[in-house]
């Protein structure tokens, strides 16, 4: 009768086989959870900048783990070491796993060498969110910006990442642009590598 009708017990989380990442939950379950995250953080701050920073922190924790998980599962324990490589990793691989699709666009800033933008017409976390007028430019995409910063930072590409609404011609809702501004050292290293 050994093991009959019993699930195997693992004493350590690392002994457990890594899931394939195909499991899903309903979008509403996530939306409810995310809304609680935002509401809780609203009670902890007195201004919008602080709220965005806290959401970003929460996202950072997710991003750092996503990088580790994906590098291990999808890339045979290797990670991107070049700027464009890591950007397209975020834009395609990370986005696909987290949001079920590749991000709408990845662009290089025209004015600054160190700026890149990932844009999404309807960011998953903003689907059920409307911002009250008195909250100005607040964008819950700060959470996703945090995820991006978490991935980049943990991969050795420190950057400042922010989320912005960008109004679109003929569209009712603005799209969200995640603006990535890499640290100087990243660009210097990139230049050296040629």
């Amino acid at each position, binding site marked *: 009768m050994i093991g009959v009708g019993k699930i195997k017990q693992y004493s350590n989380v690392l002994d457990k086989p890594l899931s394939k990442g195909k499991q899903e939950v309903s979008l*509403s379950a996530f939306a409810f959870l995310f809304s609680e995250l935002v509401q*809780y953080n609203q009670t902890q701050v007195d201004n919008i900048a602080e709220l965005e920073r806290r959401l970003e922190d929460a996202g950072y924790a*997710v991003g750092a783990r996503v990088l580790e998980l994906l590098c291990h599962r999808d890339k045979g324990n290797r990670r991107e070491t070049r700027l464009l490589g890591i950007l397209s990793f975020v834009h395609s691989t990370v986005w696909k796993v987290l949001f079920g699709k590749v991000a709408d666009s990845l662009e290089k800033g025209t004015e600054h060498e160190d700026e890149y933008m990932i844009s999404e017409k309807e960011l998953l976390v903003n689907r059920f969110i409307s911002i009250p007028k008195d909250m100005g430019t607040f964008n819950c995409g700060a959470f996703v910006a945090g995820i991006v910063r978490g991935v980049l930072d943990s991969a050795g590409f420190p950057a400042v990442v922010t989320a912005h609404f960008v109004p679109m011609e003929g569209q009712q809702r603005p799209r969200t642009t995640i603006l990535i501004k890499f640290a100087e050292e990243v660009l210097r290293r990139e230049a050296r590598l040629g």
Partner: protein
Amino acid sequence: MGPERNPKTTRLLGLFWITRNPRLLRAGLGHNYAIQSIEQRGSSQIFNFTVLSSRKQIKGSMPPVAPRSGDAIFANVERVNAELFTLTYGAIVRQLLTDLEEVEEVNKQLDQMGYNIGIRLVDEFLAKSNVSRCVDFKETADVIAKVGFKMFLGVTASVTNWDADGTSCSFVLEDNPLVDFVELPDTCQGLYYCNILSGVIRGALEMVSMKTEVTWVRDMLRGDDAFELQVKLLKQVPEEYPYKDDE
């Protein structure tokens, strides 16, 4: 009578909540209302509405809509990767631990968050599942386990450990998307990591007139072989029509 003192409207605010369709109100009792207009009187909003359907009418005049299975609903709703959900939940718990420091406080806050979710989630549950009124607590528990858990988390729970008078039972979860990648450090041994779930169940049941107490009996993160949530029915609030017409 001034609109502020109109019992229809004052009671309305306590008993109804607004669905995603802002012009449609739905009561926990299963009555649908359409809002005709909204007036702003001072700080309160006055809703003028007409009754579209009530459960009684549906029963009498229309064939009942068949309840849908949890699998069928889950297959039809929009879904997201469970890892995003898991990691986001982890980020929330970590934030709470940093902010509140005391594990007990974190348990409380998670339960409160779950409660907030539960009172809104039941609306979506009723709208999508087509379940008719459960005759007793046993049926309610079954529906939660087979339909509720499945349609939101994609897992099913089993119902066991009924007490003699049918007012207390356990949900057993072998698969729980909240806890992938999780291990409790020594400093958090008192943490009920999934406490949000107990809040959800308590909140959702309260909206369908059942006061419950939900406690963890087994927790895989604490070395048990499954997750077991005990739900105890404390009180069934009798249903009453939201207002009397002659008031």
